[in-house]
């Protein structure tokens, strides 16, 4: 009852304030000049990124350095998680010891197998069409990370590790992605441009669709980095609780 009263009071306050404010807020009908510049120039014009998707061209071209450093933040957050759960060699071996076990009824597992294959297809499509339609490396990578998560939920993490996707491999794939981003960002420097500049040496158009120069490369590498980074974290997070208590020496 007390909670309900609080809720009603908050709602009433919000309603009154918005009634009061509604006469003062300007109707937001026009674009900001900067937004208009991006819309005009993302495909046409002198400063074009050769991509019809304005958001992706901002993310990886006009504001590319921002994104580069945000990727660094992502990198550090994942590294931080891995450091918190650091295991020595023997502990890592023990964490991997275990048999894949089906935790849910048979039909669920069968449907999961098919769904995982389809999720991989969809995530690849999201990532590789980032310069044409909504989507891109970040979103595709997040979709990619769902596939190992489903497998962990249904078949336990040992099924992933038995078939070759363990934490080390996931970190290697992630490092390949980050290295790809760094190299693509450094290529323009060799040609006398700025870092991350979208130079004409990257293909503007191929196979009948605009590629947006370096955008497609950044999207692909970010896709690998985000997907594999989250996979590594999920693998660590799914180590059974009893094993971790033993590693930490907690008796409770």
């Amino acid at each position, binding site marked *: 009852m007390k909670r309900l009263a609080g809720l009603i009071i*908050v709602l009433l*306050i*919000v*309603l009154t304030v*918005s*009634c009061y*404010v*509604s*006469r003062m*807020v300007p*109707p*937001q*009908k026009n*674009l*900001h000049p*900067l*937004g*208009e510049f*991006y*819309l*005009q120039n*993302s*495909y*046409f014009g002198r400063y074009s990124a050769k991509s*019809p*998707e*304005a*958001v*992706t061209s*901002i*993310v990886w071209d006009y*504001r590319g350095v921002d*994104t580069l450093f*945000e990727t660094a*933040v*992502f990198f550090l*957050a*994942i590294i*931080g*998680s891995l450091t*918190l*759960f650091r295991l020595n060699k023997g502990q890592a071996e023990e964490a991997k010891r275990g048999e894949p076990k089906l935790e849910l009824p048979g039909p669920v597992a069968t449907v999961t197998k098919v769904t995982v294959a389809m999720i991989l297809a969809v995530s690849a499509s999201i990532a590789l069409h980032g310069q044409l*339609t*909504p989507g891109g490396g*970040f*979103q595709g*990578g*997040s979709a990619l990370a769902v596939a190992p998560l489903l497998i962990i939920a249904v078949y336990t993490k040992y099924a992933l590790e038995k078939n070759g996707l363990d934490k080390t491999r996931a970190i290697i794939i992630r490092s390949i992605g980050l290295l790809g981003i760094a190299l693509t960002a450094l290529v323009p420097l060799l040609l006398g441009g700025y870092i991350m500049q979208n130079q004409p040496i990257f293909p503007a158009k191929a196979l009948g669709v*605009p590629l947006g120069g370096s955008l497609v490369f950044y999207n692909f590498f970010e896709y690998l980095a*985000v997907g594999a*980074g*989250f996979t590594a*974290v999920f693998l*660590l*997070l799914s180590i059974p*609780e009893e094993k*971790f208590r033993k590693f*930490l020496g*907690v008796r*409770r």
Partner: protein
Amino acid sequence: MILLLWSFTLISLLATLVISVYGIVAKPNLVKKLIALTIFGDTANVLMVLLGYRLIYPVVPPILPSLSKTALGEFVKTAVDPLPQALVLTAVVIGMAVNVLIAFAIVQVHRLYGTVDARKVGEMLAAFGRGEK
């Protein structure tokens, strides 16, 4: 009417921000703090996307419908601002990674101290500092 709805959206988002800050500060449970933090981050993102919205009809996403120069004028007249969307896009994924990091820390705290209550953890740390354990 449109303006009322618009300001209601803005004010309720601001109220959500305030409530989630209260949640971060007032709740002693670390998991509840994390939940409040994610609500705070997501609300901030929605507010940011809303800054780029336009109160017109029809309004289209910032993607060129066709690769011809004739469609560009109409497109610029109806498309929303792409810049806030681009900034939010990266913030969402980074936010998720940072949330995973915090969730990890909370799990570890629970393993080591057997509780996720910030006050109890503080007491235990203080006792540990005095050398009692």
